[in-house]
Structure formats: structure tokens, C-alpha cells
């Protein structure tokens, strides 16, 4: 017997993905539809009869009259005209039993296609709790299709559906032309559903507090603070542990192998590269625990509601807020978090400005330069001058992000009104199983797609920094004789107007692996062999203040993180966006450093 090919469709918030998780468990494959950034999720399970069932989880949609690229995918697959997908043997339409008034209209649209169709009446338990009585037989009779109640979040909540799919082939419904879908929905509801009381009372009570103009914002601010703290602080011990672990592994390997190219490649290239990939995982996982819980519970769209107007003024949307906030810890989880922005235009703008948020990897560079050049002085009685400079660097990032978003809004060809029209779903308890599956997916996407690029680039940078080896009797540090050193010397021509000396230029090359690496590289260039404590003193005596300020300005803007660019490549599925981002950031950085250096030199 050939595998049964089924497609899950339904309105957003119908519990479709939870049902998908229930049916397929961890047997899922997440990819992208060809040429677009829309996620394609497919899984499979084996029915009691032994038949293999392949399940495609189509993007949630309100209507077959698609309003966005992801809705168009769902429409094309249902109509059997998507080039890359086989026509499904059966469409499983998932509806929220507590929200039939909205969801049944789409069922009627699907029925009109005349393809085999079954209705999964999901969250039937929540409907019972809310006093909504549904006559399943009457509903099935009036719709003219099979209806199976499901509770996707319960262990056996999909058993009835699995059994029904296994029993016999489901016939295609007789499409009756319906003039007014809404009138038909009302007619069916009148026959099959009775509601004892106002079913949304609990949500209304919570929303009165959560969406309150003052209390709601306070709750949001506290939540954001906790998330920011968690991503920033809780991840640090784990990241330190990973770094220490890989450092120890590198040393152990180094002790086993003879000195030479192989040892250097393994220790400084591959082990350091794998460690450099894994070190991002704690932040990504911690951030996504929060995002998934907020999304599942129904809070995320409410946060977007509260902040929409603020973000709209600069050409973003309320949904951009959490990804941007996360980017203060690290742009990589931030960019991955833009998946919660449904509108592709808003999502792209958010991705493009995310690297302007001051990530934690810039701190070592900032700390070094501020400690070396900015005196410990108290300003206006209470403020620390070093603190003020650090704060200014953060503000510079935020202000320029807003400015860039505004410019993108002006420049883009598509000036059409993009709607918010966002459903605020009922509050729900998030389920650990769905969170765990979601986390697993994020981790795999990062490790497989982004990790490979990061690892390859790390090995490339190792190669550039190690070859050719210094000649016999060389007196200067090895890096000066390497390709990286030569590239750095060449770059000096480009960066001289910014006040960068050749030592800085060389350090910028390996610094592309991660911003904080630049500090270690500077120490190497100055032949301190890992002694970073002495660096501050050297920098303070050998560099001018103008050069230091210029380098600070450079790090506010410059696309100095190849991992971020790799993530953008993965998330936008386009090298073009990567080049646009790198290009505009480089231009901004060059301009800011040039101005800073020339003005500072003129003043001092």
C-alpha cells in the first residue's frame, strides 16, 4: 500500500501545529519552499494498519484568497497546482472548536474545491470548559464531511483522527455552490452549536489588565527585562563553559599531536570553529524558550498590539520589538526570532537593522578602548564619564537603527498599506512538548544551516592567519607574515583616513570571526601572546584619542560578524540581502569613523 499523503490546513491559532506535533512527534523535517523564506514542515507516522502517512503542515491561512506569500503556498497546494508538491490525497482542515464562527467559513471554502476533506474539531475540551455544546453529528451532516473531535495537546487526543484516516478512504464532498459563506456559517452554527454563556469572559478579564495602557506596559517592560537578563546573563556561564571545554579539548589534542600544520588546523581551525558555533546555542535556546512560551500562551500578539504604533512610526511593526531586543545580546538569535513576523516586508526590515543593536560581543572592544582612553571622571556629580561613553555607543546604535528603518521605508518601491489585522487568540497554557519540539527545530536549523557556514569561515580565517609561515629567523609575530597580515597591510591604505594603524587593520581580519576576537588578535599583533592585560597600556600610549574614538564608531556599525551574515543568508534565503546588509553597514561604519577621526583630530 502506498503512503497516504495528507495536508494539514487551518486558520492561524487553530492548534494546527500542535496537532502536527501530536501526529508526527519528532519525525519532522523542516525546510524552505523553493525560492521563498516560508518554512515547509513535513512529518510522517505509521498508522495502526501499518500504512505510512506523510503529513504536510501548511502555513495557517484565513482564506484561499491569499493575502501573503505563505497563504499562497497553502492555496496552491490545496488546489494541486504547487509545482514542488504532490496533490494531497486528503486535506485535514483543523478548526478551533471555540472559534467556529470564524473558522467554519474557511472549511466551506475548502469544501467547494471538491477534494477529499475531513474536519479535525480541535480543542474540543476547551469548548466544553467554556460551555460550548457542539453536536458533532449535526455539524458533520450540515457540512457534508466527516468531523472528528481532537485535543492535540493530549496524549491520545488525535487517536480518533488517526483511526478515522486508517479506516477507509474518505470521499470527496459534493460541492454545493453557496452564495453567502457567512450566512451558511450562521445557519450551521444555529443547528449544531449552542453556547451557554459568553465564552470569552476569561480572556476579556486578562486583557483588561494585560492591555491596560499603563499596567500593560509595565508588565511588558518587566517581561522584556527578564528576557534580556536571561539571554544576557543566564547564558554566560553556559557559554563560558563551552568555551572552556573547547579550549581544554584543543589543548588536549595539541598535547597529543606533533607540532605542525595538522595540529594547528585541528586545534586553531576545527576545534575552535566548532566551539565558535556551539557557543551561540545557549543564547538561542534561552531566547526561544521565552519566545515559544509567549507565542503559545497568546501573549506575543498582545505585546505587538501594545507597541505597534511606536514601531510603525519608523516603518516597523509591533512584532519587530522582541527580535530587536534580543539582538542586544546577540544578533543571531534576534534574526532567527524574526520568524514571528508574518509580513515579509516588515521581517526583512527588522533583519536588516538587527545588527545595529549593540550585541554583547562588542563589549570587550568597547571596554578595552574606553578603559584606555576615557578617564575615570565623575560628571555632574553622579555620572561616570566612562559609563556615559558606553551608554552613548548603545544609543548611537538604536538611533541609527531607527534612522535606517525610516530610510528603508522611504526607499522601498512597495509603498502599499500593509495591514496589521492581527488576531489576538485566547490565552492558553503552553505545553512542554510543543515547546521542546520548537526548541529542537531552532537548534537544528542553526547547527545545520548556519553552523556549517560559520565553521567553514573559521577554518578559512585560520588559514589566512597561519599561512604562509614566517621565514626562519623572523623576529616579528607570525601573523604579520601571514596572508591575514598582508591583507591587513593592504587594508591600511583604505583605513588610513579613519586613523587605523596597520596593527588594527590586521586584527580586523581574524576579528571577522567574532567581534571580541579582534581584541585577542590585537594582543597577538603586538606580540603579547595572549596577554591582554598589557594591551590597554600599549593602546593608551601608542594610539591617539582620535584613533580610539574612530575604532569605537567603527564597531557601532561595521558588519564585523560573519556568523550574523551567515544567519541572514539562511533566514532570507538570499545572498543579495547579505550583500545589501554588509554594504550599508560598511558604508555607515566608514562614514562614521571618518567623521569621528577627522573631527576628533581637529579638536584635539
Amino acid at each position, binding site marked *: 500500500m502506498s503512503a497516504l499523503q495528507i495536508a494539514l490546513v487551518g486558520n492561524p491559532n487553530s492548534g494546527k501545529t500542535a496537532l502536527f506535533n501530536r501526529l508526527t512527534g519528532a519525525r519532522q523535517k523542516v525546510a524552505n519552499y523553493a525560492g521563498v523564506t516560508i518554512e515547509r514542515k513535513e512529518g510522517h507516522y505509521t498508522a495502526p494498519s501499518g500504512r505510512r502517512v506523510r503529513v504536510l503542515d501548511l502555513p495557517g491561512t484565513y482564506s484561499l484568497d491569499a*493575502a501573503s506569500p505563505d497563504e499562497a503556498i497553502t492555496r496552491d497546494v490545496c488546489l494541486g497546482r504547487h509545482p514542488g508538491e504532490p496533490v494531497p490525497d486528503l486535506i485535514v482542515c483543523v478548526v478551533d472548536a471555540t*472559534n467556529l464562527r470564524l473558522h467554519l467559513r474557511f472549511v466551506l471554502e475548502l469544501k467547494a474545491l471538491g477534494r477529499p476533506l475531513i474536519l479535525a474539531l480541535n480543542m474540543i475540551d476547551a469548548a466544553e470548559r467554556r460551555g460550548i455544546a457542539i453536536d458533532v453529528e449535526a455539524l458533520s451532516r450540515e457540512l457534508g464531511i466527516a468531523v472528528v473531535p481532537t485535543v492535540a495537546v493530549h496524549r491520545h487526543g488525535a487517536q480518533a483522527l488517526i483511526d478515522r484516516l486508517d479506516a477507509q478512504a474518505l470521499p470527496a464532498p459534493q460541492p454545493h455552490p453557496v452564495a453567502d459563506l457567512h450566512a451558511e456559517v450562521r445557519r450551521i452554527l444555529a443547528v449544531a452549536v449552542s453556547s451557554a454563556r459568553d465564552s470569552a469572559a476569561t480572556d476579556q478579564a486578562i486583557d483588561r489588565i494585560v*492591555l491596560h495602557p499603563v499596567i500593560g506596559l509595565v508588565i511588558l517592560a518587566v517581561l522584556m527585562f527578564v528576557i534580556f537578563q536571561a539571554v544576557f546573563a543566564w547564558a554566560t556561564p553556559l557559554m563560558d563553559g563551552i568555551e572552556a571545554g573547547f579550549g581544554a579539548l584543543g589543548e588536549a589534542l595539541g598535547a597529543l599531536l606533533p607540532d605542525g600544520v595538522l595540529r594547528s588546523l585541528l586545534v586553531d581551525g576545527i576545534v575552535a570553529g566548532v566551539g565558535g558555533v556551539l557557543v551561540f546555542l545557549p543564547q538561542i535556546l534561552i531566547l526561544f524558550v521565552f519566545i515559544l512560551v509567549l507565542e503559545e500562551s497568546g501573549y506575543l500578539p498582545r505585546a505587538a498590539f501594545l507597541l*505597534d504604533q511606536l514601531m510603525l512610526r519608523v516603518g516597523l511593526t509591533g512584532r519587530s520589538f522582541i527580535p530587536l531586543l534580543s539582538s542586544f545580546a546577540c544578533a543571531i538569535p534576534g534574526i532567527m526570532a524574526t520568524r514571528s513576523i508574518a509580513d515579509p516586508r516588515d521581517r526583512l526590515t527588522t533583519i536588516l537593522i538587527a545588527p545595529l543593536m549593540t550585541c554583547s560581543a562588542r563589549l570587550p572592544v568597547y571596554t578595552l578602548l574606553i578603559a584606555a582612553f576615557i578617564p575615570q571622571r565623575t560628571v555632574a556629580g553622579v555620572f561616570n564619564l566612562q559609563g556615559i561613553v558606553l551608554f552613548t555607543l548603545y544609543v548611537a546604535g538604536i538611533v541609527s537603527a531607527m534612522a535606517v528603518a525610516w530610510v528603508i521605508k522611504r526607499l522601498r518601491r512597495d509603498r502599499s498599506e500593509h495591514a496589521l489585522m*492581527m488576531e489576538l487568540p485566547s490565552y492558553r497554557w503552553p505545553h512542554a512538548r510543543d515547546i521542546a519540539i520548537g526548541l529542537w527545530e531552532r537548534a537544528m536549523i542553526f547547527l545545520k544551516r548556519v553552523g556549517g557556514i560559520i565553521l567553514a569561515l573559521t577554518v578559512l580565517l585560520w588559514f589566512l592567519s597561519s599561512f604562509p609561515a614566517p621565514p626562519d629567523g623572523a623576529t616579528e609575530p607570525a601573523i604579520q607574515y601571514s596572508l591575514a597580515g598582508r591583507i591587513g597591510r593592504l587594508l591600511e591604505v583604505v583605513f588610513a583616513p579613519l586613523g587605523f594603524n596597520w596593527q588594527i587593520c590586521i586584527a580586523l581580519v581574524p576579528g571577522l570571526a567574532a567581534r571580541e576576537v579582534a581584541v585577542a588578535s590585537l594582543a597577538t599583533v603586538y606580540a603579547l601572546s595572549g596577554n591582554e592585560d598589557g594591551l590597554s597600556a600599549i593602546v593608551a600610549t601608542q594610539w591617539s584619542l582620535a584613533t580610539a574614538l574612530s575604532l569605537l564608531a567603527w564597531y557601532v556599525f561595521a558588519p564585523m560578524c560573519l556568523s550574523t551574515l551567515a544567519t541572514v543568508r539562511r533566514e532570507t534565503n538570499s545572498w543579495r540581502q547579505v550583500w545589501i546588509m554588509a554594504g550599508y553597514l560598511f558604508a555607515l561604519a566608514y562614514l562614521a569613523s571618518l567623521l569621528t577621526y577627522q573631527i576628533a583630530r581637529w579638536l584635539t
Partner: protein
Amino acid sequence: MRLSELPKNLPATVAGVVDAVADDAIARRLRELGFVAGEPVRIVALAPFGGDPLLVQIGSTRFALRRSEAARVTVASADGAGA
């Protein structure tokens, strides 16, 4: 009256959705979301920063609509005024 002008918490009934531009995709989507003549509708909350967007309850479903979107929906308040 338009839904964007409806006072908070005043029950009303949808009269229809008006296209703001030719072939208005937003108006079409509003109709698909259930903003059709006869449905009871109410504004349940206003966002901070200028009261935009609005939280609109239709049936037991809540939608956040920006004012420009809500302006496409015409409503009659329950006491019959302003239709």
C-alpha cells in the same frame, strides 16, 4: 458611523465594509474575518501611544486593527444612532 469612531465598549452592529481603494485587499480580508452585515461588534481596548491600534471583538474573536483598517468598517450602534 465608522468602526474607528465607535466609542470604547459601546455595542454596535456591522453594516458593511467599504473599499478604501479599488480592489481593496484589506477590505476583502476584513470581510473574510467576519466583518459582515449584522455581526455584533465592540471596541474592547485601545493601544497606548495615541489609541492606535484598536482591539475589536467580533463574536468571541478579537482582532487588533489599525485605525486606517477599522475606518473601512461601517457600524450602527445598538441604540440605532449613527447608522
